[in-house]
């Protein structure tokens, strides 16, 4: 039997094996998660009022010179409530600088929510219309962006921050970014 025929006859097995490999890999992936195209790019320009003083405006400038975690949250978001305690702990113990983005939320409800549960954020920007969030590629809550000292996005956490994601991804990254020069 010549080589060509040998190839033809084993081809189905080979193709099938490849498909199994792909599906095996696929089992470990999450098809619903959308990676951010803004990694290693600067955070898009924004200017938003703060929660507690609507005349004060937060912009990219306020985030320069230090490592920032931008956390997108809302009072109507259940997972954000679950994440909240973790954020409080991180703000206190790890001295993480949190910028909160209050996404499509009611300002009074937000103030009450934070009063009840504690406030881990150094600054809170209010994105009532959601347009800034669209610029940042936000598609759900909570999401957290890790910015370096130059204001570049280095990592995006989709979903709540938990012990696992903190220990494995965020903590080492923040330590690394803190060592980088401005």
């Amino acid at each position, binding site marked *: 039997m010549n080589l060509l025929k040998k190839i033809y006859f084993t081809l189905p097995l080979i193709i099938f094996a490849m498909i199994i490999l792909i599906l095996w890999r696929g089992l470990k992936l999450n098809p619903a998660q959308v*990676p951010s*195209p*803004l990694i290693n790019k600067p955070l898009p320009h924004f200017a938003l009022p703060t929660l507690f003083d609507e005349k004060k405006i937060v912009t990219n400038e306020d985030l320069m010179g230090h490592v920032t975690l931008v956390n997108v949250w809302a009072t109507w978001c259940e997972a954000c409530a679950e994440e909240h305690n973790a954020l409080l702990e991180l703000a206190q113990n790890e001295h993480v600088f949190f910028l909160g983005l209050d996404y499509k939320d009611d300002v009074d409800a937000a103030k009450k929510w934070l009063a009840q549960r504690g406030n881990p954020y150094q600054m809170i920007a209010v994105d009532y*219309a959601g347009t800034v969030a669209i610029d940042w590629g936000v598609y759900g809550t909570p999401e957290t962006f890790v910015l370096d000292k130059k204001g570049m996005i280095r990592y995006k956490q989709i979903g709540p921050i938990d012990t696992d994601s903190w220990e494995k991804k965020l903590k080492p990254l923040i330590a690394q970014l803190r060592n980088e020069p401005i």
Partner: protein
Amino acid sequence: MKKIIIIFILCIPLHLFAADDFYPFETPVEQNRFAALTSQLRCLVCQNQNLAESNAALAVDLRQQIYQHIQQGQSDKQIIDYLVERYGNFILYRPPFVAATWGLWLGPLVFLLVGIVCLLFYIRKTATSTRSNNFEDKV
């Protein structure tokens, strides 16, 4: 009398149309562009639906953005680039034609051509193998 009920729609594949009257267009061309664009884009929240059908808050917002961009005279390509810049290629139901997707777009054609070539090779063997004498009997 009729009661007015505010209905909150969850991300289940049911149909609710954000009142399209929020998107009045001056020409049918623009109307068609809007319909075509929103049906080619994927909702990131209700990922089984396109932007035209989804009721998720993000979909409503993005429809509004697309509407405004069309009114501002932007082209389809500009609108698509705007969205891809923020959400990546995931938001496109029509994958772009780039190096990573050559296999996707050209694969079918290659498969068909290879199949036809194999078929022709196989049939050509009739010329080389001994011709059956009772050919006409079989017809």
